């Protein structure tokens, strides 16, 4: 790929990127969130059309106007969310041949004539033990990934994009996947390997390209020291230390012990003190949201939760909230807001008991509370009757937070609270969080934007694959160190 430029509106996300993959190599594509990796791969797979630039494959020049064009040119794409690309109620056979079935000219589709072909493909990806007649929904995640790989190979792809392939795999499955990659590599297939896990990149990849802000900053061997790789990915970061007093009391207000996270099948221990902001740093897929939802009992889980020294049993978020623990969820539109209701109703939903007598809501008091929250949080538009769906992302987030401010909550869980909101709103969210801490509330802040933790957290836990691998005092943490740790830089 030569001199690829791509812009969304006024924003240039790829700035003349050159990307070379040789036949029979595993090539890592690295970069922080927003560096342009996904855009580049979407262009290569035909999902997006580059503003300018050229794609040459084996000496021939191509312009892809659809994913189909890319497939015909030998590009395969194994997406991260494999379930989105498979048909769960159909057999392995039909899933592997999905592209052939679409492309074949005649209407009738014979199951038998390609059986040998499918068996051979399954064997190539190490699924010889899986029957072609099994339904995909009965397969494990690892098997589904390989089925998708088999499908990609069915159209004789020679360049295969693997997007975060090990995100949900166990150590054993990862090993098997790597063995598979080695084998196919020997057969002349090339891979483009996208991952945040640097230790895996070093294990499986031959060369790498590092993107930063839409520009290639490094191309070459993977034997570069991890510190160097991180430095390339991160670039020169402005030193954004926080300036506010990091005072916290010694009183532990909330604690979880051996809390089980079902999605990652791990357990964690965590404690927060009054006035403390605890940061949970982890890349996307590290299990942060799953941890937050386990703490709040939104998912079924086991483990001890201790609030102000008292052991608690929670079976639903209602129990957590009554004990004073609340969650500001990551997906604010889906999980945090009543989009078709007014700002006022969103803000007062937890306060209805205070403002109603015999169930009857005192609308004047409701209005008073809503207006005071709106003005103290600077929610725009400032009308309490505006519908939540008509607010900007930042203002919506303030509404979601505002819902809890006048409740008796002592522990606030923030899951990626600055996702998709503008710089100004971000600052406002930070100042709300700080003033909560100053009031003596405890904050647990889950994020993959590590700079934010350096600015506001007291203590940082590093989360990798559903486990805390490190606990650092935020004073001593550096951005490079966090990137290094969260990408599993220390792991073998």
């Amino acid at each position, binding site marked *: 790929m030569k001199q690829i430029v791509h812009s969304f509106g006024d924003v240039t996300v790829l700035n003349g990127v050159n990307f070379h993959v040789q036949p029979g190599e595993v090539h890592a594509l690295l970069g922080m969130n927003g560096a342009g990796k996904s855009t580049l791969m979407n262009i290569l797979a035909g999902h997006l059309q580059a503003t300018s630039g050229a794609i040459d494959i084996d000496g021939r020049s191509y312009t892809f106007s659809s994913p189909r064009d890319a497939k015909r040119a030998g590009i395969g794409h194994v997406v991260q969310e494999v379930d989105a690309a498979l048909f769960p109620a159909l057999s392995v056979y039909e899933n592997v041949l999905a592209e052939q079935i679409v492309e074949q000219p005649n209407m009738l589709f014979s199951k038998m004539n390609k059986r040998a072909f499918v068996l051979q493909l399954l064997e190539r990806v190490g699924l010889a033990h899986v029957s072609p007649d099994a339904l995909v929904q009965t397969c494990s995640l690892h098997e589904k990934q390989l089925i998708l790989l088999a499908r990609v190979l069915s159209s004789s792809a020679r360049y295969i994009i693997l997007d975060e392939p090990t995100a949900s795999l166990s150590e054993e499955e990862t090993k098997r996947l790597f063995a598979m990659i080695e084998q196919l590599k020997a057969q002349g297939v090339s891979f483009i390997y996208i991952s945040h896990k640097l230790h895996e990149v070093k294990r499986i990849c031959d060369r790498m390209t590092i993107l930063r802000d839409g520009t290639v900053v490094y191309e070459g061997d993977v034997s570069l020291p991890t510190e160097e790789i991180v430095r390339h990915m991160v670039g020169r970061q402005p030193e954004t230390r926080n300036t506010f007093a990091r005072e916290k009391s010694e009183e532990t207000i909330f604690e979880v012990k051996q809390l089980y996270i079902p999605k990652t099948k791990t357990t964690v221990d965590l404690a927060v003190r009054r006035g403390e902001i605890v940061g949970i740093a982890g890349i996307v897929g590290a299990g942060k949201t799953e941890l937050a939802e386990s703490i709040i009992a*939104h998912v079924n889980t086991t483990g001890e939760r201790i609030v102000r020294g008292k052991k608690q049993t929670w079976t639903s978020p209602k129990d957590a909230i009554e004990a004073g623990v609340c969650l500001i969820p990551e997906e604010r539109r*889906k999980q945090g807001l*009543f989009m078709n209701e007014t700002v006022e*109703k969103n803000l007062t939903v937890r306060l209805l008991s205070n403002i*109603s007598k015999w169930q*009857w*809501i005192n609308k004047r008091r409701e209005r008073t509370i809503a207006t005071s929250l709106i003005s103290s949080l600077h929610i725009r538009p400032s009308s309490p009757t505006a519908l939540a769906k008509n607010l900007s992302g930042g203002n919506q987030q303030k509404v979601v937070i505002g*819902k809890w401010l006048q409740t008796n909550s002592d522990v606030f869980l923030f899951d990626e609270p600055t996702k998709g909101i503008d710089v100004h709103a971000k600052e406002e969210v930070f100042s709300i969080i700080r003033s909560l801490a100053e009031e003596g509330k405890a904050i647990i802040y889950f994020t993959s934007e590590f700079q934010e933790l350096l600015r506001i957290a007291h203590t940082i836990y590093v989360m990798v694959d559903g486990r805390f691998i490190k606990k650092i005092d935020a004073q001593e943490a550096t951005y490079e160190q966090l990137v290094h740790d969260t990408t599993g830089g220390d792991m073998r």
Partner: protein
Amino acid sequence: MKFLYKYGTIIAIVVVISFFSITLDSFFTYANFSDILRSISIVTLVAIGITFSLIVDGFDLSVGSTVSLATIASASALVLHRQELFVALIVPLLLGVLVGLLNAFLIIRLRLPDLLATLAVMYIINGVQLTYTKGFSIYNDMPLPEGGTAPGKFIPSFLFIGQGELFSIPFSVLLMLFVVVCAHLFLTYTKFGRLFYMTGENREAARLTGIPVDRYRTIAYMISGLFAALAGIVLASRIGTGQVSAGASLLMDGVAAAFIGFSVFGAGKPNVIGTLLGSILIGVLLNGLTMMNVPYYAQDIIKGMILIFALALSHIVKK
């Protein structure tokens, strides 16, 4: 378009009434209006129940057969078992609540899709009332299979519900207005009502906000069954017999009324006042069509078209 959405139902009611008044001599009379209101009162009760299930983002197809069951239950209590008014009221109401609980169990505990679960329950309940009556209606002095005639009869106090008048207004209409006002106040001004809407609006957000969503959904289905049973009592009292499958046609009328109600005054969500206007529109239309000698089976075509129109209108405006 917005204007048509907000006031379309009211305009349609006015247009339909004026049209029938001009073309039919006997339409714009007190007797006829009182008749229309009586039939509307039954549909409205059913439709308000449906409105509750819609508010929590559910659906209840079993209301029609619950009406039938309640009709049979009160008739049986009076005619076959010679019970007093209290029993003839409480038994059908309890049965209605039980049907609601069954629906809630299937939908919330077993996580069956609401449409399919209530469809199945609709058939079961319909089968139950047919089995119980062996397919025969229950009426005064009916002959019994074991010889003789039924011991009881429809007592006047029971018949008053569907046939009596207070201050020259049919009692069933007053009952309907009372229920409409109560349900409206409950849903608009109380904490309970607010949380019903929140549950339906975004179940996950509601759960994360600490609302016991399963409890609210269960209550909504119970209310739906309760109101269907109340409609069944009024129906039994109005016709003075326990007719089998009497409520079957009320499902469609109720669903149409509730969906027409979405749009009234631009609410954009299920609401009781809208539901009332929806059922008035359907009631007036059906009455006029009957008077114009449009056969009842052809009226189904018109009902279906009204529902499609109401759905399409709210869908277009939402976009």
